[in-house]
């Protein structure tokens, strides 16, 4: 039995190479060309050529529709001679038998072999006839080429189904679940690009999540936001199924849109494209992707659910600020980073003034509004790297990486001003609305403390000082230390 390495994979190219090379040697011709008869287009489309000892593809197209004699000869299904210029040709038709839906030949399965003699050379018909007979016999084995295509196709389907199933099921466990899904799809299908959009129902928007290209590079596309209303964008129409147009056949079969639905509600959109390579996305690939749609949608639903639960466990529902547990783990990481890279890190501790009195006088509902507004102001005023947290009750801590005392103080001052601008309407009260103020304490690493707990304690100490000196003010630990003459 042949060694695996010695086995030659049958491809269409290798099949025709062997065939034309042998016919070239045996027929005494200058060249042999292979044409595919595309009767729907009226052309003989050149496929391969063996000439001068070399095998290559040919782009030669011969239009026969307007040439009655040529057309007649082609459809007679019999060999025929033709002289063009100084060349003499002998066309030999062969019909490929079998079901060729998967092969490049499709339903148009008539192939012509053209025996060529150039420069007024004469064709040797007895040799050609023998060579043509050999071609005809060899073409009986052409099914093996299709068999190879089928085998590869089914093998790939089975492997892809199994592996993608695993990916979709396990994506919930991975940190970047969306990335895992589209990278998995990319790896198994190999499109030029896959883009993934998720539906944000509350915002009524389709928001870009990630795109992955042919070399596997994943890019966030969260800048791409599309209003999810009929007519707003073709992506919206596809997701909402508000279009009769078959977008899947847009751009010459190079783009395929796969809307994702969960319980009949739109969940997202996957866009597969081969725009760069211009290689059509096959019907088989489309069908396979469609069959994965529900699995992908389910995986997306699981991820969203997981994110929701995570959001609930890590974030305060009222203020939308992270909770203490989340803060503690991030604080630990950032403190370690500050120590390692010798960078400053400040902590700003905020307390809403007279919060207990607000609750007691106007009720918890108004107290909640006060906290919610303070949370909104804080969330919208911070840098991306800052990390706020509702530490408990009305106390809020903001961790400010890479910020020393002066940066922290500037932020505190700005926040204090914005909190003072909050006006909360109070119905059934003579005051009509209440204003908020806040007390704030600042401590910075490494100036005020060398350990995490110590830094928090110093910020708390500074806050206590403000609260015991009239509130509605900002103090840094270094200031109270100087004022009280306290030594570290």
């Amino acid at each position, binding site marked *: 039995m042949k060694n695996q390495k010695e086995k030659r994979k049958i491809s269409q190219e290798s099949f025709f190479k062997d065939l034309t090379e042998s016919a070239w040697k045996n027929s005494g011709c200058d060249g042999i060309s292979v044409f595919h008869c595309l009767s729907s287009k009226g052309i003989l489309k050149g496929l391969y050529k063996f000439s001068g000892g070399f095998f*290559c*593809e*040919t782009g*030669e*197209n011969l*239009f026969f529709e307007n040439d009655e004699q040529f057309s007649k000869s082609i459809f007679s299904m019999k060999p025929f001679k033709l002289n063009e210029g100084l060349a003499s040709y002998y066309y030999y038709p062969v019909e490929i038998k079998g079901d060729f839906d998967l092969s490049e030949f499709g339903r148009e399965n008539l192939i012509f072999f053209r025996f060529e003699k*150039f420069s007024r050379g004469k064709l040797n018909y007895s040799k050609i006839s023998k060579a043509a007979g050999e071609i005809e016999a060899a073409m009986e084995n052409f099914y093996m080429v299709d068999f190879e295509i089928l085998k590869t196709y089914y093998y790939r389907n089975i492997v892809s189904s199994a592996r993608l199933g695993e990916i979709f099921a396990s994506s919930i466990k991975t940190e970047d679940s969306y990335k895992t899904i589209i990278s998995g799809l990319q790896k198994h299908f*190999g499109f030029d690009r896959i883009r993934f959009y998720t539906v944000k129902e509350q915002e009524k928007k389709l928001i870009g999540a990630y795109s992955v290209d042919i070399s596997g590079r994943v890019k966030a596309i969260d800048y791409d936001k599309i209003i999810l209303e009929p007519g707003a964008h073709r992506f919206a129409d596809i997701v909402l199924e508000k279009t009769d147009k078959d977008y899947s056949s847009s751009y010459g079969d190079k783009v395929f849109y796969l809307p994702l639905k969960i319980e009949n509600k739109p969940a997202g959109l996957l866009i597969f494209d081969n725009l760069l390579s211009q290689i059509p996305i096959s019907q088989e690939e489309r069908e396979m992707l469609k069959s994965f749609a529900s699995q992908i949608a389910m995986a997306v639903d699981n991820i969203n659910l997981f994110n929701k639960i995570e959001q609930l466990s890590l974030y305060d529902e009222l203020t939308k600020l992270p909770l203490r547990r989340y803060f503690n783990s991030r604080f630990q990481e950032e403190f370690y980073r500050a120590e390692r890279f010798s960078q400053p890190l400040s902590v700003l501790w905020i307390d809403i003034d007279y919060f207990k009195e607000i609750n007691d006088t106007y009720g918890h509902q108004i107290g909640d509004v006060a906290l919610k507004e303070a949370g909104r102001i804080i969330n919208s005023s911070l840098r991306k790297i800052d990390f706020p947290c509702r530490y408990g009750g009305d106390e809020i801590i903001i961790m400010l990486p890479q910020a020393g005392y002066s940066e922290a103080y500037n932020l505190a001052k700005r926040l204090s001003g914005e909190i003072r601008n909050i006006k909360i309407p109070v119905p059934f009260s003579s005051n009509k609305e209440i204003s908020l103020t806040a007390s704030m304490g600042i401590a910075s690493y490494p100036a005020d403390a060398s350990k995490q707990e110590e830094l928090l304690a110093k910020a708390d100490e500074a806050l206590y000082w403000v609260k015991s000196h009239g509130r509605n003010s900002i103090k840094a630990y270094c200031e109270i230390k100087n004022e009280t003459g306290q030594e570290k």
Partner: protein
Amino acid sequence: MLIWILADNNAVKYSAFKTLLGRFSKEYPDMDISFEIKSKKTLWKNFFKFLRDPEKNSMADIVEIPQEWTAVFSKLGMFLELESISDEIKDSDYPSFLRNSMKAEDSSRLFSAPFYGEIRSLHYRPDMIKAAKIKSNMEMLGWDEFISVCDSVSADNRRKNFFPLDNFNTSGADAADILPCVLNRGGEGYFSSDFGSCEIMKDEVAEGIEDYMSLFVRKYLPVFQENFYEAAFIESKLSAMAFSWRKPLKAGRNEMTVVPFPNLRRKNNPARYYGFAVTCACKETGEASVFLKWVLNFENSSFFKKRLGVFEAKEKDLKKQLEKEQKIYGDLFASAVCPPNFSVYPSFEIIFSSAISDICLEILRGDYSKENLFRRLALIKGEADYLLSVY
């Protein structure tokens, strides 16, 4: 080491390349080197197949590419940076119109080394032009005058299968064939100068395309046909003129006169170049370096270019070659322009060529109309702009 070279209308290329490798092997007998022929379409497909699944798809160590493919495949990580292969390849060795085609997009890093080039010109048989009593100065033909020449030549030759012009492109026409007509009309190409948008619907571009297609409609140029240039064109007088990219081939060199493409503005003469790139599949980069250095040397490869009727790539070699050629080539190369080398250009060419091929079929069937052409062009523009927005 395996090299993939591009298929050519002229089979001389293959035997010449075989000789070239034979000479190389004589100098480097320890190096195992071979080549395979790939059509432009297959080469393109194979690159993408390999990018998708490098384990299951094979790839050559060195590939011959149209220079304008450099940007897209270097961006996709398909080619190795030439500096890491051989520090002897410098863009300063090449003429300024070629340097951009060697680089990655938005970078000065080199990924391909041009090997040979072609430039668009008009070849004609003086005896046939004279016989048709044409008095126009063939070197200074305006477009309308050129159409009149075609008309007169056509009237003078009533033979079956005679066309005033020969078509080298067996697939009809492509973006590069049509470009001179676009430039004729005052367009600068198919894209805006910053490559930010496709300008195919601009009047100059659309009219340029229509000019070229009208040659098919008027039956001055066969739509699909074999490459007759060597055999039939010269000897059988089946054509009087040809838009050629190369020099007149050996058989008819003495019978042909070369002039500029009709009416072409002298500041832009379309040229196209082909070069070598080392792929990421290449394990023996040392061998690739030796081969590139050897093959890019004028002494080693000039015979190959002579046989093919093409032009040198390196500035000093090209200068040396042009001194020996007809003066016209010096004039043409003084204002040579290559297709733009940016990521989506090759994809655009595929879209464009496929649409043009469909239009060619419409012409053959008598279904052609200007409105149809413009509708197709609008679709191409839409697709090209979408491509630009995504990539």
